[in-house]
């Protein structure tokens, strides 16, 4: 509901059709540009991770003893410089995308697969089941994502699977909550009543009616959680609890480079930049999609 302050009827008549067309185009651009940029960046990241063996100029673990701690471009074959073992930073950052994106995508998928059915069940069934599920979720929510993931990784040890598990578990209560709140609204809709009247059982209602109607909102939020998952993975690796070296991940490249910030800041700079761009890409997409979903917050 817009309140036009100081509107003069004359303003409206003077407005030419050309202006209207331009403002429509502006609005269109403003809505789709962030999604476009975000999608492009995210797609570039995924391609980089998938095609790492083809794109990376050198092996991420090859050590060049003639080029230890060399700056970007000092030795021609090392575009972004080298680390303390003479390994190529560009190649390591490209290979590091694999770890970050795998963990980011798989852990969110994991929490989606576990959290959404529980949330829908809680929302549709109510009663004791709901109380049990929601109290459990509340308990996990008492921990910040990183802290919970940190506890789990400490207990299980750092590896690709354990990190996925840790971040997946840490994110699950968020999906439980969201799915439940969506289910609570959806179950009151007439089409659910109609489905029930036609004889659909509880399970069918949840799977065929509630879930598809909640899907869009869940996917939007899921995109934002990919960003959270990538950042959490990087944080764990930075704290030395992620994938153990020598497998490159953005977090552990950055963590190893910390000792050399005095002489060789490029190690931390480029690995950190990669983390930021990846997180930014998924934030951009998720954010723009959420604005589309919730017109009230749209900035127009």
């Amino acid at each position: 509901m817009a309140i036009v302050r100081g509107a003069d009827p004359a303003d409206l008549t003077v407005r030419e059709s050309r202006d209207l067309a331009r403002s429509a185009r502006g609005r269109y651009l403003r809505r789709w540009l962030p999604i476009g940029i975000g999608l492009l960046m995210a797609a570039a990241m995924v391609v980089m991770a998938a095609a790492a063996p083809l794109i990376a100029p050198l092996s991420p673990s090859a050590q060049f003893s003639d080029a230890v701690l060399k700056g970007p471009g000092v030795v021609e074959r090392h575009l972004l410089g080298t680390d303390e073992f003479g390994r190529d930073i560009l190649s390591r950052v490209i290979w590091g995308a694999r770890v970050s994106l795998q963990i980011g995508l798989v852990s969110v998928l994991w929490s989606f697969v576990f959290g959404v059915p529980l949330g829908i069940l809680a929302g549709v069934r109510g009663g004791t089941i709901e109380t049990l599920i929601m109290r459990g979720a509340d308990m996990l929510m008492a921990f910040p994502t990183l802290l919970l993931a940190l506890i789990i990784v400490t207990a299980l040890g750092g590896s690709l699977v354990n990190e996925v598990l840790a971040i997946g578990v840490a994110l699950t209560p968020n999906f439980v909550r969201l799915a439940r709140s969506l289910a609570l609204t959806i179950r009151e809709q007439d089409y659910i009543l109609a489905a029930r009247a036609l004889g659909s059982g509880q399970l069918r209602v949840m799977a065929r009616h509630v879930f598809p109607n909640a899907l869009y909102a869940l996917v939007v939020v899921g995109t934002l959680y990919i960003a959270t998952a990538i950042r959490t993975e990087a944080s764990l690796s930075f704290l030395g609890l992620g994938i153990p070296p020598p497998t490159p991940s953005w977090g552990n490249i950055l963590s190893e480079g910390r000792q050399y910030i005095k002489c060789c800041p490029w190690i931390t700079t480029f690995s950190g930049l990669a983390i930021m761009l990846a997180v930014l890409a998924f934030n951009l997409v998720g954010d723009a999609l959420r604005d589309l979903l919730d017109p009230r917050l749209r900035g127009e």
Partner: protein
Amino acid sequence: MVQYVLRRVLIAVPMLLGAMSIVFFAMRVLPGNPCLAMMGDQATTEALADCTKNLGLSRPLAVQYADYIWRSVRFDFGNSFRQGYPVSEYIARMFPHTLVLVGASAIVAALIGIPIGIVSALKRRNPLIDYPLRIFALLGLSMPVFWFGILLLIVFSLRLDLFPLIGGGDLDGVLAMIRSGEAFTQPADFLAAVGDVLHHLALPALALGFTLAATVSRLSRSAMLEVISQDYIRTARAKGQGERAVVYKHALRNMMVPLLTIIGIFVAIALTGTVLTETVFTRPGLGKMLVDAIGARDYPLAQGAITVFTMIIIVVNLVVDMLYAVVDPRVTYR
């Protein structure tokens, strides 16, 4: 009101218990014997048996669990494996450092975040203002605090040599001077010590505060948007009040209510942030203590730190819930 407070407390207690149980069992599912993990493969059988006995690991799990809960309630987390002295003592020493960091970064975050959020909500139809602000918020949200911290260190500590590279200053000394009354008898020394602490605090607070500012600006933006579409704002405008009066007298005050509820979220994010920030800046504090304890496999210390973190978050949320009811008279004390 009393009933409401009691209800909230009664909800918080099982949550706290549940969270503590998660910590306890997570620490117990560790593959293998924690003693073996700590001492390494070289440990003798006698040393292992001794360690197992000291930790009470040979007792039934239920007994260990009850013991842990009962001791935690009294803030007794046992002794640190590495240092030997009580974990609670360690935590009490580190707590002020973390508190100061969270407080300072909260101030930075509020000073940057709230104005940006408000302006971005009010000027949302002006892309020249709204866009840069939203990009700022997105960047802050996407920038890992440990990376921003390292960039600050590279520029301000290493290149410009303006701030110290590591440490947190002599906060213990400052606190001791306050306790002993020296702060008033020797104000010059005291101010110098405080200045040193602030000097050490500046970069970490800026790093953490900046990343938190993004969250704060988004939350205050949506709080402002929520408020600005209310009927009383339309009424205020309808009776001819200027934009300034509408914003300051009507919108801003009401915006504070939803903003208050996010303090709980804020503290949770800030505490997580201290884990990373303190590690980057090699600052003493609860977060660094936790990371070091995990690295050294000092389980009592890690368990104590995590338990304290969880307690703080749950208690802050409880307090915020109550404040919410006090500030907003429309919240009924059910």
